[in-house]
């Protein structure tokens, strides 16, 4: 009966959209680094941590008001407690685990065992409770029980919680943990040395009335201070034997420090590329809009120079290490990833709809471009795909792979050769406009319905007359181009005016149009 009730409740929770939405939002807030409000949440938590530590320090020599103490002991602790419980809640999906168990049992014609399902859920939750970060979280809540004075010191565990909210600290831990074995070796070695040194110095000095080493604790204290090359000088050996031990310990201390330094340095050196790569991935993840170029080649270089005139950043994916290095040498934002693998895009957490302006397939072979196009189309149907076509006979294959715009340089050269040989001046004019070698450009202005009453009179104003030329109107809806439009040509939303003139003048025209349009 209990089992059936639990299963029903699980099915209900799985299909309850408000519940799922709340859980997703909580998860994003706590765990998803790409969630825009997580940064705010993290900053608030960091603020609370510092406030808590400040109150602890202030309390030592000053009397604090009851309000502050209440805030520290109850409010902050309560917030941390809620955070801990929420993390426990979003770690694993209990209802999903129960349903899976239930369906498995149903499939195998076994009676549903509630306790086994409960055990699976409990294992999942204990997995969280046992994790180091959760233990720290728990310890940070303990000052809640401030009546127990010793628990007050646990406020310092709140500082350790900073690891949760700052990525650079997490990275530091991960780098150092890659040398876990070396650190353990060093710690064991140091402990043995301290142990031997403490025993030796105690044996050598404890019976000498002039010696400050009177207890085993004095000996251990002296050993630790010496081996870590601090040497306060409050406890010094007075016997010759004790001094010999000191000399040996000092030498071993230098070895320990050097060993520790070399471990840290080598950990950072080994992880340097990984750190850089992670940083570049982070940089890409943070971009709001960008062009994605698959493959770095001479053509990519030219395309990047052309697109770099705009304000949208460009990201290159290149699998070949040599070409990747070349791209980096040019100072481009390049990532050493294979653009034809789905894994690449999931690892980079690329949001095709919101982040990608266009994807350009500029790899050296049609085969690679088709393969990459299919990978991307498998993941999204909406992102605009542009591709270079190396062999004309492959055009159909590129079309079938879902590429929107296909450009064949050979065909372009042929067409240009035709115009160049028959109308060289016209070619010169168009080529100059296209390559934007002068300030005269052809530009687009997106129009809104009803703006014709502002557009046409503005063109006749002294500043613009004879200096701006409207080549035509591109009617967005029926994809029709009206050359040399008359002054009574109506606009619809999304229609585009193709306009020729000086870049500065066009920008001025656009801004006046916008201002008057708003008014």
């Amino acid at each position, binding site marked *: 009966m209990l089992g059936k009730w639990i299963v029903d409740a699980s099915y209900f929770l799985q299909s309850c959209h408000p519940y799922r939405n709340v859980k997703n939002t909580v998860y994003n807030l706590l765990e998803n680094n790409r969630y825009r409000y997580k940064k705010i949440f993290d900053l608030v938590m960091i603020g609370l941590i510092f406030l808590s530590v400040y109150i602890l320090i202030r309390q030592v020599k000053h009397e604090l008001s009851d309000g502050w103490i209440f805030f520290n002991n109850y409010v902050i602790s309560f917030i941390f407690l809620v955070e801990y419980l929420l993390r426990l809640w979003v770690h694993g999906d209990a209802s999903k685990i129960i349903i899976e168990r239930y369906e498995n049992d149903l499939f195998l014609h076994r009676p549903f065992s509630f306790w086994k399902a409960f055990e699976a859920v409990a294992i999942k939750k204990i997995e969280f409770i046992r994790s180091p970060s959760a233990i720290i979280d728990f310890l940070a809540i303990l000052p809640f029980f401030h009546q127990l004075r010793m628990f007050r010191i646990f406020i310092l565990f709140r500082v350790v919680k900073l690891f949760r909210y700052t990525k650079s600290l997490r990275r530091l831990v991960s780098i150092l943990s890659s040398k876990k074995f070396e650190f353990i070796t060093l710690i064991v070695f140091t402990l043995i040395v301290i142990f031997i040194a403490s025993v030796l110095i105690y044996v050598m000095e404890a019976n000498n009335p002039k010696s400050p080493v009177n207890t085993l604790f004095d000996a251990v204290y002296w050993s630790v201070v010496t081996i870590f090359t601090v040497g306060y000088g409050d406890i010094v050996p007075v016997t010759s034997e004790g001094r010999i031990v000191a000399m040996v310990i000092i030498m071993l201390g230098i070895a320990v420090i050097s060993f520790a330094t070399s471990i840290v340095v080598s950990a950072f050196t080994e992880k340097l590329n990984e750190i850089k790569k992670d940083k570049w991935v982070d940089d890409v993840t943070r971009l709001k809009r960008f062009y994605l170029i698959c493959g770095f080649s*001479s053509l990519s270089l030219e395309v990047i120079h052309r697109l770099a005139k705009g304000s949208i950043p460009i990201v290159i994916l290149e699998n070949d290490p040599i070409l990747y290095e070349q791209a980096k040498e040019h100072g481009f934002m390049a990532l050493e990833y294979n653009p034809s693998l789905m894994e690449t895009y999931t690892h980079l957490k690329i949001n095709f709809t919101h982040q990608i302006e266009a994807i350009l397939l500029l790899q050296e072979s049609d085969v690679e471009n088709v393969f990459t196009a299919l990978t991307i189309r498998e993941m999204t149907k909406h992102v605009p795909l542009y591709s270079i076509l190396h062999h004309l006979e492959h055009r159909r294959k590129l079309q079938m792979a879902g590429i929107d715009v296909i450009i064949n340089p050979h065909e*372009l050269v042929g067409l240009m*050769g035709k115009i160049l040989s028959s109308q060289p001046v016209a070619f010169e004019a168009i080529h100059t406009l296209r*390559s934007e070698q002068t300030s005269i450009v052809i530009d687009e202005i997106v129009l809104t319905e009803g703006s014709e009453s502002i557009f046409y009179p503005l063109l006749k104003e002294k500043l613009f007359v*004879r200096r701006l030329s409207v080549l035509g109107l591109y009617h967005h809806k029926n994809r029709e181009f009206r050359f*040399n439009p008359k002054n009574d040509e109506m606009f619809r939303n999304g229609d585009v005016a193709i306009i020729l003139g000086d870049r500065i003048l066009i920008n001025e025209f656009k801004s006046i149009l916008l201002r008057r349009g708003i008014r």
Partner: protein
Amino acid sequence: MRRTHALIFGYNEYSKQILAQIGGNYREITLFVSNSEEMSAAFKEGWSAELFDLGDDWSVIEERFDIRLLTTFCALANDAENVFLTISLRSTFESMLIIALAQNHESTLKMKSAGADKVMPVLQIAANMIGDMITKPNVTHVIHDLLYEDEGLGVMEVKIEQYSPLIGKYLHDIDFGSDFDLILLAILDHERENSFSFAVQGYNHHINKDDVLVLMGDKKKLALFKQFARG
């Protein structure tokens, strides 16, 4: 003077496309290739080709063609060889129109120094096209139609002949849009050593004989204007 003969050097993907496109512009097209492999490849695809070498003996061309009527496309696959071919042709034939292909910006400069009249920077052309397609799709579409479509809109150069009714007029006196349904794109001023300027730069240019007007519009209207301008 209209150029009636074309020479194409090299047989590769680029020259194949040039061959396919310029057919209607010339009375005769001659293909020169540098080796027998290229020759047999051209032959397989229905083109007859002649062998050439990069030496200085261009008597074959001198004897067979009127150089003033000749357009030459230097389309060898290797940029260094293409530069050498260009410089070699220019040193022999001063009045030959040489259009050369270059793979990159560096080679473009070399081609110009070698004496090419026009250079087609292959990568830059493709890159500009890709860039335009992304940033200004409508403009690109319109320009493509203007330049390459056989029907509808087009671009035309109109040279001002001796008896043209336009001679003596100022650009601002003529309303190309209303009177002819055309748009004046640019003008090549013969008096100022063929200097080139766009109409929207606003100069009230005085139209003289041998000036060249570059106009855009419907192809039929362009043809009518050409007739009108001829007088």
